[in-house]
């Protein structure tokens, strides 16, 4: 399985939640991600009490919608981010955000291990790239993601190596479309 640098296999834990309703795996995910989600929401302008409550909600969604987690598509951190973002929109009464049509990836009991590894390691690679950015540029990206910038203030030029991620997902989508026809 794909292991993070600190040795923890978050995707593996997430699959145990998904496939075996494993409470110990959930507890490990909670210890790691709940304080991060809380920090994310506080940076986004929520008070401590609201952020704590929302972090609880986010972790409940992670349990409840575990079937939507696909380790070959996104890292656990990325998946947690999308749930936390949606929670922030709810809690801070931001504009409703329609979701794209879901794709029928189909049941994939044995995802390609190389793809899983790739997807899980992307978060660390991006983290290193973020750390290497000039302070000003990193701050701009953080402010965008913490919801401090309006859409017209967002500068999309991140200086991050996003092309590799795009290509990987593009390939997966092409494969999927071929299977569907």
């Amino acid at each position: 399985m794909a292991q993070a640098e600190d040795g923890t296999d978050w995707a593996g834990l997430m699959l145990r939640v998904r496939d075996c309703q494993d409470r110990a795996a959930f507890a490990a995910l909670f210890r790691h991600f709940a304080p991060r989600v809380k920090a994310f929401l506080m940076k986004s302008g929520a008070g401590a009490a609201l952020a704590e409550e929302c972090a609880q909600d986010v972790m409940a969604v992670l349990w409840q919608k575990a079937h939507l987690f696909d380790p070959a598509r996104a890292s656990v951190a990325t998946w947690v981010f999308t749930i936390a973002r949606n929670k922030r929109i709810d809690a801070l009464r931001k504009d409703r955000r329609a979701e794209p049509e879901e794709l029928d990836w189909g049941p994939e009991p044995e995802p390609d291990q190389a793809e899983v590894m790739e997807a899980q390691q992307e978060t660390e690679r991006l983290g290193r790239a973020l750390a290497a950015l000039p302070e000003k540029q990193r701050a701009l990206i953080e402010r965008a993601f913490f919801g401090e910038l309006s859409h017209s203030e967002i500068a999309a030029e991140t200086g991050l190596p996003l092309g590799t991620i795009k290509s990987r997902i593009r390939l997966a989508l092409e494969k999927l479309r071929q299977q569907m026809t």
Partner: protein
Amino acid sequence: MKIRHHLSDQLLMAYSVGQLPEAFNLVVATHVSMCDECRARLASFDAVGGALIEEIDEIAMGEAALEAALARIDGLPQATRTEPLKTAGIFPAPLADYVGGDLSAVRWRRIGGGVKQAILPTGRSATARLLYIPAGVAVPDHGHRGMELTLVLQGAFADENDRFDRGDIEIADEEVEHTPVALAGEDCICLAATDAPLRFRGLVPRLAQPLFRI
């Protein structure tokens, strides 16, 4: 047909972070539903969010938080996989959701010259509407402040510079002065969003110039 006109990085990133007005969210979600290229680009912005969550300085949860969470999931059944909603018509799922069905469910209002529109219910900071432009007819001439997104759902339109087919999105800022015309062959249906009130200059659309009868 291959989609040639895509969303900008700025719009995709603003959608990923959840900072767009509701009407723009709808247009982005509808285009992404039709376009794998933008779906993949969007996923790469979501991945930046993941990296930030991972790197953030955590803030400790309350003492009994984990216990509370474990107690909560005890009574919480896990949802099971459902087949994604398939739409048979021309509206991808997010748009069908707003309209309450496909094309036949749209409540059009005539705005002259055979052109019809239907305003969709969204938050007020921006407006989303469906436009129905008969083949060969010009899109009603309107100035707009701010940004306007136009996504083609059926047929095609062209202006002096380019043509837009199903799935293509035109991003126009206030500087753009153009005269888009629905191309002959099929009536054109678009989803448009603008973040400033529309100012129609004339209610009667002009007839297409012969030049545009491609």
